[in-house]
């Protein structure tokens, strides 16, 4: 099991890599890497296809790729290879539909798939308690609420399926908006009842007994002042070129004030942690892997950064693959290697 912070770094690195590498060969590689990590790690670090797995990345790809390609082809009429033309009376859509626009749209779909797959892995391998622990102490209650919300999504989907089935056995058929109440009314009521039930259970377990001491007027006022200072500095930086240094100073001051207040507020939160996890060599190696990937997509040459960009316009050409960049992207595989190694040791 890897530390939740490692998985946070991993998912952020995946996001950066997916956004930076606009070459479909690298994007396909990232899809493969996230899929392998998901398959290897989810079974060890979390529930595979568990309550938080709503949609598999593969299913997401089968929806996102064609939709994105179609949307781009119909709305962007650029490119030399014209497949067909849409008649002029269709607003926005009329014009030539090109192969290049199709490819560009599909490429966007691939990028979306990588982002989705990254979050899907993070969601599956990180236990809810670790997700809560990732939030700053000052936002502990917000973290708990988010973790509960995460469990509510799949529960609501299960309720929806159950209610749809229950109505189907009465002869219900969905024909239009008028037919929504038999589904929506029981769904809303069951959701509210579930929320009330959970709230009651949490109160019975003492939740919130000591949280009243956390928030104070001073904390709230300090946060407002910090945010206003930050905003003032940013506006000064943008609109008063002569006072740029002052703007930067205000931004740093505002940011520091916010951090300090959150730190102080966090200290006031009376909350302890059960079995804090120790940082291990595996965690470090997984971070190194992420660093390698970041280096490949962020640092300039000699790692062949030029091949990161690819545009099918104006005429479709084959993208170039740089083995060094490809190797760098494989750094994201490190969590899977660590888990496999751990299983081997066991």
């Amino acid at each position, binding site marked *: 099991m890897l530390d939740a912070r490692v998985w946070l770094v991993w998912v952020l690195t995946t996001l950066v890599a997916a956004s930076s590498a606009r070459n479909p060969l690298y994007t396909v590689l990232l899809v493969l890497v996230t899929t392998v990590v998901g398959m290897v790690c989810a079974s060890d670090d979390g529930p595979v296809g568990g309550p938080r797995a709503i949609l598999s990345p593969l299913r997401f790809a089968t929806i996102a790729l064609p939709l994105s390609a179609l949307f781009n082809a119909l709305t962007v009429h650029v490119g030399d290879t014209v497949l067909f033309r849409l008649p002029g009376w269709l607003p926005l859509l009329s014009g030539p539909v090109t192969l290049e626009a199709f490819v560009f749209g599909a490429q966007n779909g691939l990028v979306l798939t990588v982002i989705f797959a990254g979050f899907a892995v993070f969601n599956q391998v990180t236990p809810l308690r670790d997700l809560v622990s990732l939030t700053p102490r000052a936002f502990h209650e917000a973290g708990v609420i988010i973790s509960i919300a995460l469990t509510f999504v799949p529960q609501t989907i299960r309720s929806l399926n159950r209610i749809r089935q229950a109505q189907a*056995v009465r002869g219900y058929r969905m024909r239009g908006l008028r037919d929504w109440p038999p589904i929506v009314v029981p769904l809303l009521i069951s959701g509210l009842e579930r929320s009330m039930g959970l709230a009651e259970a949490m109160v019975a377990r003492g939740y919130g007994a000591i949280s009243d001491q956390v928030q104070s007027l001073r904390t709230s006022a300090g946060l407002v002042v910090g945010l206003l200072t930050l905003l003032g500095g940013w506006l000064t930086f943008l609109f008063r070129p002569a006072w740029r240094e002052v703007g930067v100073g205000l931004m740093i001051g505002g940011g520091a004030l916010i951090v300090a207040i959150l730190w102080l507020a966090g200290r006031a939160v009376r909350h302890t942690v059960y079995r804090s996890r120790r940082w291990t060599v595996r965690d470090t190696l997984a971070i190194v892997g992420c660093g390698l990937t970041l280096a490949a997509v962020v640092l300039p040459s000699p790692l062949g950064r030029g091949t990161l960009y690819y545009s099918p316009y104006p005429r479709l050409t084959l993208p170039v693959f740089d083995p060094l960049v490809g190797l760098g992207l494989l750094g994201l595989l490190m969590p899977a290697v660590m888990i496999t190694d751990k299983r081997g040791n066991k």
Partner: protein
Amino acid sequence: MIHLDHLTYTYPGSSEPALSNVTLDIAEGEFVLVVGPSGAGKSTLLRCINGLAPHFTGGTVRGRISVAGHDSVVEGPQSLSRIVGFVFQDPEAQFVLDRVEDEIAFALENGAVPPAEMRVRVEEVLHLLDLAPLRDRPLETLSGGEKQRVAIAAALAFRPRVLVLDEPTSQLDPQSAEDVLNALTRLNTDLGLTIVLAEHRLERVLPHADRLVYLSGEISGEDGGVLSGPPRQVLRQIDLTPPLVTLGKALGWEPLPLTVKEGRAFARRVEPGAAEQSLCRSRLGDGADPLLCVERLSFAYNGASTLSDVSLTVRAGELVALMGRNGSGKTTLLKCIVGLLRPCQGEVTLAGKPLIGQETARICRQVGYLPQEPDDLLFADTVAEELSVTLRYHGLEDQPPLPPTQLLERLGLEGVMAVYPRDLSVGQRQRVALGAVTVTHPRLLVLDEPTRGLDYHAKQALVRLLREWQAEGAGVLLVTHDVELAAQAADRVVILSQGEVIAKDAPEVLTVSPLFAPQVARLFPGQEWLVVEDALSALGKAIPDDENIEVRARLSRHQGIGCPGSAADSSSRRIIADRSTSAAQDPNPPGA
């Protein structure tokens, strides 16, 4: 430990109090069982103990509640969580996190318990409830009984002195329920934990209880309708009794047996005598044409086999009980029958016509399927409207096969036709849902755990209703964990285990299986008596008043069907008393 002094509690917006003038003392280390009909105020009483009522529910309180010297009304549930642990009916509804150990530690983390102490406490409860091997498991992978034990462990993390449980075994199969109750008994005897538990299925919990608190629901009396005392003393005065006690009362056994072991001492002295010779046996549906045929049905969820080669038959006028542990595939089978799931192989026919491949809505014109959660069906403004909606869906609004008002009368809902369904009691809501799926006058009823949360009287009412439908030729396939209900109502029993049929057309399994045997069968091994009336009839004894209606109804119907087979016919389930028994001699049986 717990002292209720003239407690009166009224829910917000209600004119009648839910509890009135209740005075009760519970000593430290007692195992107290709270019983009573649905709506009598059992859950309210439990919520008053830790202050959830009125702090969470609102409402007004008069009188005083004190737990270990703390005033629940003044201090509230959050403060009392260190003294009172509370476990709800549905374990999943109270989980916040997703792993066993994390869930147990959640309350401790939020209570700022130092990590070292937290570690000790979590280890304690993991071992107390035999959860140590499951500590890293995701909660969703646990069985129902394991989940309930995790919920108990989470409630015990603060080392409370009192544990309050609201129907903790109502959703569990017999074995899982026994595991949970054994764990509670261990906590009670080893740690001296005071336990207050509300439950409808007395036969499960009574052997564990030191004391019985009966809430009658009548708030007019000086005692607030509360009867409290040693189980034997209270059971003599109430009619909500498990089969063993009902039999003991009818046969005059003293002291009244509470466990099967205690009852056996009396049972050994009972001689069946001549009455046994005059028994003839039959079962409903014998000789009738098969209505539902399931042939070699298999189903797999994501590649994992859930049902394998399942075959069963339900005849017209027959009630078949489908039993098995949680997760054995019972609900999946029902869903395959009504077309909600498509099996990977096998055949399902209704009166010879194949069902697989047909639309669910079309199948359910002839098959009334009541899912586990009746609330999923209810959305209309009135009870009557719920039935009209089903007719509208099937295009039968103008020519209903069964007049909705007639069905509502039959369901005992004629007085609440204009009421919003969700304002009704659990039993009434369940009957509204039953009405909503049977208003098309189906030939087959498929019911998934219809007695969850129902008291004995509501269960008897349901059994009576099903028998009326059977008498009219409807087949019934009933999924239940309630062995006493199966023993009482079923003509045949099918048992599923891990998706396979392990026993069918063999009703004697109920008399020999340690898991599914009802109390009477365990009391008289080898006699094939399943319910109280079987034993009393065979022994030539009078049947207690509350059972009379049932037995007479059965007898009158059986007289019409006849008694094929002999007394030695061990393959049949029904035992019909000789006409000489007092029950059969009633000149005017109401069910006739």
